[in-house]
């Protein structure tokens, strides 16, 4: 296989990381919502934790993007 083609395939495979980020973000928001439905008075206090968890989960998907960029541009 040519190197160029292999690079493209590898970069595309690195995008699979986004599946994990999607599951993570969905879990965080889903669990926050179900928790907030059960105890609405405690929901507002946990909102910063929700945002923190969202940002942390989203970042793991973006590590996949960094891998893709390294494959495409660094080698």
């Amino acid at each position, binding site marked *: 296989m040519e190197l160029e083609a292999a690079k493209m395939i590898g970069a595309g495979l690195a995008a699979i990381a986004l599946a994990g980020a999607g599951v993570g973000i969905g879990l965080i928001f889903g669990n926050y919502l179900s928790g907030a439905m059960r105890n609405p008075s405690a929901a507002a206090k946990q909102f910063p934790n929700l*945002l*923190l968890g*969202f*940002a*942390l989960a*989203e*970042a793991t998907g*973006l*590590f996949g*993007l*960094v891998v893709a*960029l390294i494959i495409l*541009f660094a080698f």
Partner: protein
Amino acid sequence: MAINPMHQFEVYKVGPEINLGGINLSFTNASLFMTISAILISSLLFFGTKKKSLIPSKIQLITEMSYTFIAKMINETAGSSAKAFFPFVFTLFMFVLFCNMIGMLPYSFTVTSQIIVTFVLAAIIFIGVTIIGFIKHGIKYLELFVPKGVPIVLLPLIIVIEIISYLSRPVSLSVRLFANMLAGHTMLKVFGGFVISLGLLGGWLPLSFTVALTGLEILIAFLQAYVFAILTCIYLNDALNLHH
């Protein structure tokens, strides 16, 4: 093909080239936008605290809000003993926030989309926190790698994992901010390219998408500054209050 979406991250020099002993110290667009954000932060704080009235003006309100926001965050995550590090965390948060927000303006340059900028910030935090931990606890700071209540059999494995996770802190901290900024701005430019290539007939759909994405990116710009600051507080908490 439209314009390369990576073109916006190019660093070029503004003004004359300066060479000091083989090191290129030219004033680049990155340094220009760092200077702009530093000036903006300084003027916000200067004019916000100039006229201290009981009923605050808008600019004084923004200044007080950012102060209480960070002060509360430090108090909640790192305890009252971290109060001494308020200036550092506040500077860090404001710098990252303003760099991210200025980067959202069209035709501007996002300083935090350069890995070296975020890595230097993260490395300063990592080295500083390690030094603070050793000053505060001496050699006992190494107990950080030994969690309480772990069976003796598992201990060798746990210690190795803990050391690796401690050493990967600066990498994950810097790559998180850098990758978020890079991905967001690339995505905006890619959708902007769709608007041009689809033309007057079909370009409205990606245009509305770009508007929505810009809103999301402004949220992300704030969130990443917040996460950067709160993780600094969490690391400080580890160093100041061992095993709490």
